[in-house]
């Protein structure tokens, strides 16, 4: 009995010693950061923008000599919007001991599926777009957001629809993925609280290219505002175009994904005129600090939609934390995590200082509203929940 107890204690002791060793490494071994996203499939365009923007940040750090002379490498992990593949990516990242942080996953349902894996390994994840509220309500300490949550956005959208657009009858079409379903229900709850109860709800399928059947239903309903909750800009371009074609008089209101000059305004060939979209960041072109990033991105990759700037910001926050952790020559994931959690008032290119609260959420998330005027978006309102 005593011998097996001693043996047991020794075993546990060894395991603890090994685990401590496994998670702390010499800086010179290399520094990698992961980028988890859907790089193939329908969401490839925004996810590539996230990757490329983060890469610009990485390149800038490397040009300045990297961290302690070590060049940083960004590793792409493609989940193709499939939670099963997302889990594979998470396991791959966790197993690579040189990866000290991850930017992403931007999709709420993938973030949910991989939460436990990253959490068990204390591998920091900074997402740029996952906005489902309960992701940070589960007690996991390694998940951070540079974007506001859907409950804030939903309430702000409801305020905007009721107060600014003065709607009494609203049609909400939602795409039925985690993010869209959530935003739609938060907004509808908000509208009901504000006294707008005449609401029609229906669903759309992403990538279907033809929404005329469901839009015909909307036309028969005759709403004041059509809230088209889809993820990608091309889908919303088709939505606004077909709505106009069918003669729907309602004001078109789209989501963050539609904040894209080329894929929404240009693609709809004038049908988007007068449409509104909401977004979690103010106009990046109006932020002077962002000018350098904007120039680099546009020169190399083309037009920016709303997804790039937060990715650049997130990667910079992550690298700042890694650099602080590497100051003593040894990095561990726990150190990086602690540093990211302590981010306060980080001034980057988003136009507002980034502070993470206790749950990992962005403090003070506001929602910005834009109207399509001519070839560009004009910011028309900011809602902060009041």
């Amino acid at each position: 009995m005593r011998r097996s107890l001693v043996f047991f204690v020794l075993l546990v002791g060894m395991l603890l010693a090994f685990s401590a060793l496994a998670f702390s490494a010499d800086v010179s071994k290399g520094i990698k950061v992961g980028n988890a996203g859907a790089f193939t499939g329908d969401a490839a365009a925004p996810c590539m923008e996230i990757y490329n923007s983060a890469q610009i940040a990485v390149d800038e750090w490397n040009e300045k000599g990297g961290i302690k002379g070590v060049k940083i490498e960004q590793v792409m992990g493609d989940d193709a919007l499939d939670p099963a593949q997302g889990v594979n990516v998470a396991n791959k990242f966790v197993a690579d001991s040189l990866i000290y942080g991850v930017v992403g996953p931007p999709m709420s349902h993938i973030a949910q599926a991989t939460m436990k894996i990253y959490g068990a390994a204390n591998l920091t994840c900074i997402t740029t777009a996952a906005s489902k509220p309960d992701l940070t309500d589960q007690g996991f300490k390694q998940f951070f957001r540079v974007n506001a949550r859907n409950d804030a956005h939903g309430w702000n959208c409801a305020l905007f629809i009721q107060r600014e657009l003065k709607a009494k009858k609203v049609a909400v079409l939602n795409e039925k993925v985690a993010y869209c379903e959530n935003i739609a229900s938060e907004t509808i709850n908000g509208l009901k609280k504000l006294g707008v109860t005449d609401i029609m709800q229906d669903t759309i399928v992403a990538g279907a290219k033809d929404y005329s059947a469901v839009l015909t239903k909307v036309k028969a309903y005759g709403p004041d505002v059509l809230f088209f909750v889809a993820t990608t800009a091309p889908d919303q371009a088709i939505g606004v175009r077909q709505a106009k074609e069918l003669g729907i008089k309602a004001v078109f209101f789209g989501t963050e994904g539609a904040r894209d000059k080329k894929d929404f305004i240009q693609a709809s060939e004038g049908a988007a005129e007068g449409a509104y979209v909401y977004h979690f960041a103010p106009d990046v072109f109006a932020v002077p600090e962002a000018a350098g990033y904007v120039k680099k991105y546009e020169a190399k990759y083309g037009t920016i939609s709303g997804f790039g700037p937060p990715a650049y910001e997130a990667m910079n926050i992550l690298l700042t934390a890694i650099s602080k952790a590497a100051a003593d020559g040894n990095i561990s994931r726990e150190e990086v995590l602690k540093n990211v959690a302590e981010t306060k008032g980080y001034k980057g290119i988003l136009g507002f200082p980034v502070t993470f609260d206790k749950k990992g959420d962005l403090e003070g998330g506001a929602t910005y509203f834009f109207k399509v005027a001519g070839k560009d978006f004009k910011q028309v309102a900011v809602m902060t929940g009041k």
Partner: protein
Amino acid sequence: MTQVRTFIFLRTSFMDFYWQQLPQQLVNGLTLGGVYALIAIGYTMVYGILFMLNFAHGEIYMIGGFVAWWVLYLLTGNNVPFVNAGVLIAFMILMAMGLPGVLGILIERFAYRPLRKAPRMNLLLSALGVSIFLQNLVLNFQGAKARSFAVASLIPEGLRVIQVGDVVISFMRILVIVVAFLLMALLTVMVKKTKVGKAMRATAQDIEAAAFMGIDTDRIIVLVFFIGSALGGAAGALVGLMFTQVDYYVGFQAGLKGFTAAVLGGIGNIRGAMLGGLILGLLESLATTFFPATYKDVVAFMVLILVLIFRPWGLMGEKIPEKV
């Protein structure tokens, strides 16, 4: 008395919501149906002769869409076409038929013909492989973003949308319906009235006997792949014109729907494919009218399952007796 009156009033305003939509939904369904029919014909023709399912057909449709996009892009500067709009559209469709047609021939020659004597599974896998290859080829060279067709400038402002009572039909939809039916009519005439059509029917009926009769079955097969792919490509171009977008992934869904339409109508039967396509399109639109839109595919496939349970050879197929 007032209770009865209110009841009738409630009932009619409830029905009103649906009645109001019906004409528009029928138009929506017809356009979708025409497109599905064109894709279904490609599947059915190949199956009729070779008894194989050409999984790559969906990607042919997608490539047809891209060809049309490139033609439009190359022949318009700043959204203003260099040639007359009608000529431009006709050229788009013709190129979208020709190039995928040739691609179909190449696929047959290099991916299917060597496997003709092999077990059926090998052919299927080869088709799947071609499908994945084409999808990723386009993804690699064209990128992941959906491409938009700048078609609004092609049609004069007054003609763009035509209103008939409560029904609003865009010009493009009319064009799509007209072209789809025209192509189907041409195909029917060719198959029924020409010598080559007779040869095709003979080859489909019994490939060995046709060979004995002196028909060059290899050439007929090449022709079938060309025509099937050309029609699939035309469908891609028409969808691009109508829904104004194409991306590397559209082939998957379209192929699935086209295949379903072909099976619904009786795989191997060309008229069945046309009928199946139209029915599928109408079903989808009507399903969206009465149920939430995400159930439209559920309804369509449930109908398919029911038809296959009670009439496994499809709506217009024939019971093929087991050859002993």
